[in-house]
């Protein structure tokens, strides 16, 4: 590892200051505000929140429904990952699962609720097809469906990734040793995956516990923490101090979850080597998993189908003739063009600056001996813990009087911090695999450290950098919980515009805007994938 160069400090200090100003200080202020009352500091805000039966009920509701979501999601994600990795189902089906499962990630969560209403409501698409109301959707059922769809892709990616690191030869060994199906399954699949399954559970729990979009659209009378926080902050009688308390309470399960994740990490197996082997033939297994995973996938995608149908019809569900008037009307509104431009601008700025910051942090952490470099690990753990709504709220407290209020900058900064963890870990992962003496070689050849980073490290992690960019971009396009407290009339984005349209129940416009976000994200994703592939071909 090279000696510490001034250039390293020049990068390190601003990054540290950046996270101090936009992560540590805002959260500090949030804590302070939660104890602040009209007469000094006391616990009275906490007491008033804790004695508020409605609020406590909503916290209970959140815990209950998030736990159930996590169980269902983990199970479904496992089934899909198993079908993909341990069966011989039809190859194109595997490809379809791999791609299809990611589609919800390209849409804002607030859209899910409206898609569910239009699918399962009294006049919904699926209700019409089946001829009767399947179940009440407002409240618990709708939320559960929404949360499961929302958390399934993330949980699937996690489990599917771990499956790659399991040595499947043990399955054959176990079989030859005469283990029964259950015993074999337990020892060769479940045991090595235990840590990951726990991780998927915690991840799904935290995601649904802190999401705002789904309950905002389909929560009905079933209150959850996220909607309560919104009401306390932006309702008819705003109470900022109680809002701070709720935010702190919202933070607690997340902190607990991350601690649990770190503990579960220890359960993970590390096989020394794994061999790619063909799966044993088993028709019954293949057919049943093929059917089950197809059902899961179609079930999920059919909910979104209505979104692509309704805006093209005159008046769904009464007048089903094809029309483009809704589309044309929507795009003629200058409002829509403005918010779309705003969204693009914010997503691009976030992606460029965020990737830069995350990459630099990872370089400092992995490839230098600079003192205090582990602080970026701590930062990434913190950003992983803090829910978007809490972060946005703490920005509101800290920057309300400042010139940052109501600017694009504050939204971009919030997004960068909110989504820092994943891109940072991607970069870290890729950088740590590179030969550790490249910097020394570069130095011997007369390149400065900066030059080596630019000429050697960066090109070699190009594929990862593109992935980081696409992650930041897509998430900035779809986030609503992070920015709901920060957008203003002049800086509103597509996702917050959907929230505004909800007020007028203008579903066609909501779906058209959602399609717009979806297509934009799809294009960016495909472009990034394309560039990534090209880079690989060069190597």
């Amino acid at each position, binding site marked *: 590892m090279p000696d510490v160069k001034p250039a390293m400090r020049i990068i390190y*200090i601003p990054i540290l200051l950046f996270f101090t100003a936009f992560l540590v200080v805002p959260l500090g202020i949030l804590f302070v505000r939660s104890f602040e009352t009209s007469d000094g500091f006391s616990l009275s805000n906490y007491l008033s929140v804790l004695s508020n039966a409605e609020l406590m009920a909503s916290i209970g509701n959140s815990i209950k429904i998030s736990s159930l979501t996590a169980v269902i999601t983990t199970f479904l994600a496992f089934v899909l990952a198993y079908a993909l990795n341990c069966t011989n189902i039809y190859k194109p089906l595997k490809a379809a699962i791999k791609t299809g499962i990611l589609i919800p990630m390209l849409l804002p969560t607030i859209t899910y609720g409206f898609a569910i209403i239009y699918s399962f409501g*009294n006049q919904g698409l699926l209700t019409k097809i089946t001829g009767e109301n399947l179940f009440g959707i407002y409240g618990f059922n709708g939320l559960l469906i929404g949360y499961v769809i929302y958390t399934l892709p993330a949980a699937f990616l996690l489990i599917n990734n771990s499956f790659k690191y399991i040595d499947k030869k043990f399955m054959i060994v176990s079989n030859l040793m005469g283990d029964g199906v259950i015993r074999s399954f337990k020892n060769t699949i479940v045991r090595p995956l235990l840590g990951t399954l726990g991780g998927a559970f915690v991840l799904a729990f935290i995601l649904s516990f802190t999401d705002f979009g789904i309950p905002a659209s389909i929560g009905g009378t079933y209150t959850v923490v996220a909607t309560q926080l919104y009401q306390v902050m932006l*309702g008819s*009688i705003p109470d*900022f101090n109680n809002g701070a308390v709720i935010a702190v309470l919202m933070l607690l399960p997340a902190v607990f979850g991350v601690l649990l994740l770190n503990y579960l990490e220890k359960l993970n197996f590390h096989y020394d080597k794994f061999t790619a082997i063909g799966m044993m033939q088993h028709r019954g297994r293949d057919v049943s998993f093929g059917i089950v995973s197809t059902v899961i996938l179609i079930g999920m995608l059919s909910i979104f189908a209505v979104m692509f149908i309704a805006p093209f019809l005159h008046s769904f569900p009464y007048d089903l003739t094809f029309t483009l008037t809704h589309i044309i009307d929507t795009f003629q509104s200058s409002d829509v063009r403005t918010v779309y431009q705003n969204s693009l601008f914010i997503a691009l700025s976030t992606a460029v600056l965020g990737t830069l910051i995350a990459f630099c942090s990872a370089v400092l952490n992995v490839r230098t001996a600079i003192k205090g470099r582990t602080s970026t690990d701590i930062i990434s753990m913190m950003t992983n813990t803090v829910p978007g709504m809490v972060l946005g709220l703490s920005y509101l407290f800290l920057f309300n009087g400042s010139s940052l209020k109501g600017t694009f900058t504050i939204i971009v*900064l919030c997004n960068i911090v909110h989504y820092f963890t994943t891109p940072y870990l991607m970069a870290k992962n890729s950088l740590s695999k590179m030969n550790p003496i490249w910097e020394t070689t570069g130095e011997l050849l007369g390149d400065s450290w900066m030059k080596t980073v630019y000429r050697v490290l960066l090109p070699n992690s190009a594929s990862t950098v593109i992935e980081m960019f696409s992650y930041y971009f897509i998430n900035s396009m779809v986030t609503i919980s992070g920015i709901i407290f920060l957008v203003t009339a*002049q800086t509103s984005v597509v996702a917050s515009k959907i929230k505004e349209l909800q007020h007028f*129940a203008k579903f066609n416009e909501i779906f058209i805007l959602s399609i717009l976000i979806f297509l934009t994200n799809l294009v960016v994703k495909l472009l990034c994938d394309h560039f990534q592939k090209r880079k690989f071909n060069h190597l």
Partner: protein
Amino acid sequence: MNVKKLKVTLLSLVALSLLVVLTACSSSKAAGEKLVIYTNGDEAASEAMKSALNEAGYEGKYVLQSLGTSELGGKLLAEGNQIEADIVTMSSYFIESAQQQHNMFNDLTFTTNALEEHPPYYTPVLANTGSIFVNTEVLKQKGLPMPTSIKDLAEPEFEGLVSIPNIMDSSTGWLLVQAIISEYGEEEGKTVLRELLANSGPHVESSGSGPIKKVQAGEVAAGFGLRYQAVMAKESGLPIEFVDPIEGNFSLTESVAVVNKDDATTTLAMEMAEVIIRDARKELLTHYPVALYEGETVADMNKPAYSMEFEQPLTVELLEQHQEFFKSAK
């Protein structure tokens, strides 16, 4: 050594300021110097105001942001003239309370010939009247009788088939509560409201336009909301019928006010407020058919059968009392 340290510090400061400049550049683009209008008006009101402003040549010079009544009310009371908006159109009682608390509005510099007296810092934009409406097809399908009063909707046969606006978020919800309280008093009223809320279940809407949408979509059979919306739906050929409840048709006015900011903005805001009153009223009157200014007339169909006014003056305090009443009926 010290020189080296200094160099490092200096350079990192340069790098940091670069970052700040970079983001500041982007933020200056955000400012855009547009005038901001906050309104609690629904779609039709927003559209009418927009087209009046655009025709007067203000297109692209303003942003019109729609907010729920409670959301905008909260902002007005919490932020005073620090609010982002330069012009506000909002329920009159809320404008009065905000003015009392923050003295945040300028007296209007233009004159209007309103039918009713109003304080110098606002002038009415539109008035809303409440009524019941039904989806005749769903009514037939479920074999339900045609309701004539709000109380009818509280009958058990309407369980799960009624939609009402929530007074916590929507001023239309207040029209409902006013009707219930003035007809039945607080005690019997609470029973009626409790049964009504039970019947509404998940269809207690945060937006005043929520119930009519639910009725149009056939999600419910009957609802309470703005009378004109039911009239328009009926005229457009949908199976919708409006019913003036025997408890009374109550009304609320929404007004325009100009926020006290620096001179240049306020002058421009004043001009635009005048345009809204002068040019948008004609279109507004077709959507909200209540005459507010001299010389305005409305068609008979839009004249509610049981027009009424609440006995006490409408204030935010009264609203809060009625919100408590609403909550206690849950």
